[in-house]
């Protein structure tokens, strides 16, 4: 079985106050995470307050853009095009929801190394995604 990756229409993110920098950086080809100055923990999705200690002293850091597939599901019947939703554990230690793209979706497996890439949502916002490394 082979299920070729196809581009699909991505829903636009409904960006909240404080999220702007994340998507500006994505447009520059970067993936940002938040790191807490008080407890030192990195978290994702990014918040204005650290989910580990509730400190407001959280700053953006740039992720290396490499990681490992934690889990995935080739979603075959939720739209006109099959797509692969996944959780990728980044080398910084946090796990993010994403899509695996630009490959035979049936070749995706847990534990595979992946690297950062981007696809655009309907309004042109850059959305971080991952391809097999």
């Amino acid at each position, binding site marked *: 079985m082979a299920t070729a990756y196809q581009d699909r229409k*991505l829903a636009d993110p409904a960006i909240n106050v404080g999220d702007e920098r994340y998507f500006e950086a994505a447009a520059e080809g970067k993936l940002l995470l938040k790191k807490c100055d008080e407890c030192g923990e990195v978290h994702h*999705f990014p918040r204005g307050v650290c989910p580990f200690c509730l400190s407001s002293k959280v700053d953006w850091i740039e992720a290396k853009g490499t990681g490992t597939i934690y*889990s995935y599901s080739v979603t075959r*019947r939720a739209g006109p095009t099959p797509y692969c939703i*996944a*959780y990728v554990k980044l080398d910084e230690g946090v*796990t993010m929801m994403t899509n695996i793209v630009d490959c035979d979706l049936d070749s995706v497996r847990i534990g595979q190394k992946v690297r950062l890439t981007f696809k655009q949502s309907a309004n042109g*916002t850059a959305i971080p995604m991952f391809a097999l490394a």
Partner: protein
Amino acid sequence: MTIKGKAYIVGAFEHPTRKAPDKSVAQLHAECARGAIEDAGLKKEDIDGYFCAGDAPGMGGISMTNYMGLKLRHIDSTDTGGSSYIVHVGHAAEAIAAGKCNVALITLSGRPRSEGSSGMQVRSRGSAVPEEPFEIPYGPVTVNLYAMAAMRHMHEFGTTAEQLAWVKVAASHHAQHNPNAMLREVVTVKDVVESPLVADPLHRLDCCVVSDGGGALIVARPEIAKSLKRPLVKVLGTAEAPKHTMGGKLDLTYSGAAWSGPRCFEEAGVKHADIKYASIYDSFTITVVMQLEDLGFCKKGEGGKFVADGNLIAGSGKLPFNTDGGGLCNNHPANRGGITKVIEAVRQLRGEAHPAVQVKNCNLALAHGTGGSLGHRHGSATVIMERE
């Protein structure tokens, strides 16, 4: 303080409809309320506490209170998704124990079947939801989120598609006896694993039904319960636990049942071997496997082996579950299955389940739910009940 023995479930009603194109959600709630009040042998005027969740139209419980003309001393609209109504049993018992109300009504209803709503649609939960910009573009739907939990479970523990299929097979064995069930045909493991993949590794038959309908429960203080003519179903223990993505330290291998289960058993003061019947939320087959592990009916990772070979089938298996056919075959009104879990447990404890699936001497039952998704955020809730 404990709620043990402080409250009884005196009324239970499951709406017989599975498709209600001509009824509003509010009407379905009210029909369920009336059904449960009549089942208990109470009057509408006896209700002084009301519990509902996000399926109720309007602001919290206020619109439904208005629609049904209730006069209340206590109101609670806690929403943990499909497990809300199990949470509500606990909260109702707490309110009764604290003297805040005497007779609590819990309602659920919805018409996702008529409205074309299913677990294959990307759904926004409203404005300013903090996680949504970092999830919605990736196409998270109910099925693929649970599928990712299933995929990880298979990877870590060797759970197989055939083992998951046994959950559906058991549910279908029960549903054949339920005239209201949506899917009454008995299916085999082969039927399940050969049905189309919806979101790998979950097949169509690994998924619950989409149905219109609803249900209601009445929880009352002991003196009132004992004045009624129905069999006595005592609440022994309740517990709830939200689980989420933990700031990015995600672990999909367990659910909030790992936290709510032990606390519920502790409050009830009973052991797993004492439980004669279990209602286990079955949004998907994987949901049942993971919850049974987390509740402690088997070791973590051994849920697949536990459910295999008919172990959940009434009459032959060691732990009869969802004898109404569950969400997998009978009913999943409003895409929320918590209330039907309690209703079937009450039927079992009263001896009112279908004779073909009635558990003999069923004096102790558990109901457990997962609302939201095993794949990111959910609310777990557990209740243990005893026939007195």
